[in-house]
């Protein structure tokens, strides 16, 4: 049997609903229909009254989740696309994220964001928003890159007493497969060494981990050994694991799908430069999407986002320096 990244997300929600009566799911078309991506397939049927179709009201969807959380529930709010969370933004960053600090009442809400570019997605169905949400105090931001993490981290997200922005990547939904669901996982907040190497550290997360691994493969043929660090969560960010890797390799390339100004890559480089300056044998570099909206046409989209090829090219530059 083999299971996809998307099925893992569906299974994690099924398990959360089955194990914890406090869990419910709220979002557009997630009930009988099973969601725009089928991440809640059959869940409304298996868990009557606990998987509810919402109106097209992102602000109220998140607000409702916060209110239910105050009453001890563990809501999962599905945004149909991450891009639409901009209209639920205020409730996420100012309501959910501030509740515990202001009132000492925890806010165990999970907001699922189907993120990232796909062929023909275009400017408003392709955005990644981890760099926006991670800036705000009070939020945990997860960016699983594997089927196993999609499953175990979503269960973690629901179990945590704090608001979690769960960034799942649409490009991984169907193609990424595993043989079975994991029974154990790294703790939340710990990064993972996705591939070991001694010449260069590539820090990535979400779909970019796979581009980085492909680049590492390509470079291996050239006799270069790339270490790939999968951040898993971007807030909190596992500086120790990154630093330990850079200590081994002396070189750092950060790869992310979000826009170049600020964000995960800038944060990682700033931390390494501040706390691990002496570890660096060469200037740290980063690779992001280009500084425009995400283009519709595949030709343009392929040039807009980092790919195994552009990562390999960037890596060679660093290795030469």
């Amino acid at each position, binding site marked *: 049997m083999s299971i996809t990244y998307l099925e893992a997300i569906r299974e994690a929600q099924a398990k959360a609903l089955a194990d914890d009566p406090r869990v419910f799911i709220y979002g557009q078309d997630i009930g009988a229909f099973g969601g725009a991506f089928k991440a809640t397939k059959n869940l409304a049927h298996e868990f009557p009254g606990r998987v509810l179709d919402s109106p097209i009201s992102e*602000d109220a969807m998140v607000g409702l989740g916060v*209110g239910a959380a105050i009453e001890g529930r563990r809501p999962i709010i599905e945004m149909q696309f991450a891009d639409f969370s901009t209209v639920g933004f205020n409730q996420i960053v100012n309501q959910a994220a501030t509740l515990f600090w202001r*009132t000492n*009442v925890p806010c165990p809400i999970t907001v699922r964001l189907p993120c990232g570019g796909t062929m023909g997605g275009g400017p408003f169905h392709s955005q990644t928003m981890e760099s926006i949400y991670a800036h705000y105090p*009070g939020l945990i931001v997860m960016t699983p890159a594997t089927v196993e993490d999609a499953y175990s981290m979503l269960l973690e997200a629901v179990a*945590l*007493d704090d608001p979690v922005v769960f960034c799942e990547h649409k490009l991984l939904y169907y193609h990424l497969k595993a043989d079975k669901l994991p029974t154990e996982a790294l703790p939340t907040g710990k990064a993972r060494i996705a591939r070991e190497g001694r010449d260069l550290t590539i820090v990535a997360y979400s779909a970019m981990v796979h581009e980085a691994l492909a680049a590492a493969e390509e470079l291996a043929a050239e006799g270069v050994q790339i270490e790939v660090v999968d951040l898993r969560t971007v807030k909190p960010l596992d500086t120790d694991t990154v630093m330990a890797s850079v200590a081994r390799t002396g070189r750092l390339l950060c790869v992310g799908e979000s826009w170049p100004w600020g964000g995960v890559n800038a944060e990682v480089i700033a931390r390494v430069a501040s706390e691990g300056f002496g570890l660096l044998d060469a200037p740290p570099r980063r690779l992001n999407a280009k500084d425009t909206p995400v283009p519709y046409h595949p030709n343009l989209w392929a040039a807009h986002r980092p790919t195994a090829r552009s990562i390999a090219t960037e890596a060679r530059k660093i290795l030469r320096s």
Partner: protein
Amino acid sequence: MLQTALKPGAVGDSTFRETYLKAYRFMLLARILDDKFASLYRAGKIHGGVFLGRGQEALSVAIGLALQKGDIFAPLIRDLAGRLAFGEPVIDAVRTYLGSPLGPMRARDGNVHRGQPKEGIFPMISHLGAMISVVNGALLARRFSGVKDTVGAASLGDGATSTGAFHEGLNQAAVEKLPLLLIIANNQYAYSTPTTRQFACHSLVDRAVGYGVEGYSIDGTDLEACVKSLQQAASKARSGKGPQLIVANLLRLCGHGEHDPAEYVDAKLKCLPGGRDCLKAAEEEMQCRNWGHPEMISLWRSEAVHKVEEAVATVQREPGPDPYKEDWSAISTKHLSEGNG
């Protein structure tokens, strides 16, 4: 859909008399506490703004009284009377305004941004309209738990009805048929902005039909109308009739905040129905009906003054917050806290 507020024959009935007097006492206490905050503000004793409920006590107290212990209340900036009637201790308000670490917001948040979620008082965030869907969520959670006979009230001003959050929140409550009381205090202004720049409908109660909820239009300065309408609306909500939209007409008898002289207020409004001082109106009503003798009222007043002065004196002796005692972490899962980057 539109309903008249008064149940005939109710007047004079003795339990109502008690309710009325009880309401009046909370209004009086609220007015006195508000006045105290105003003087503390003028004395430079309060950081940031001070926002009063002067002129809106009748409506606000009616909300607090229509709610029962265990219900939910998301008050807005002019709801001191309602908060007190619902059970918020005077000292919570004082500690929050004066920034005492012993208050419910621990000096982290201030003035009207206070509450105790576990006691059913949801502390507003500033973004207008944002609390409605939060109340919806709490009510939905209670439905999941099989809790019956509960309601949640959310207060709003006329200006806040222009927010998307108001629309999404009320519509969501209507779709889920939640026991939500949405009370709109139309005090004729949003800060300086008159209602003509805020909406073009004849009355905000005309919105009820568009959501499929019941609507009430009342004189927010008439304590009896407020108490009876809110009670009626609350019992309807409790009995599964879904959201109730109460629109009260009244006038803000103070600045938007104490920093605001409010010269923009049209003096004529004071002469119109809804423009009078609801506290005075209640006193006159009590006289006509011969409810509560003047001596009793002045006794109540001095008791209220004493209560307020005592609370303020207590809080003023309390030390301010100590930044070194703060853990400066915004999440409850401490081992995941990033500290201060």
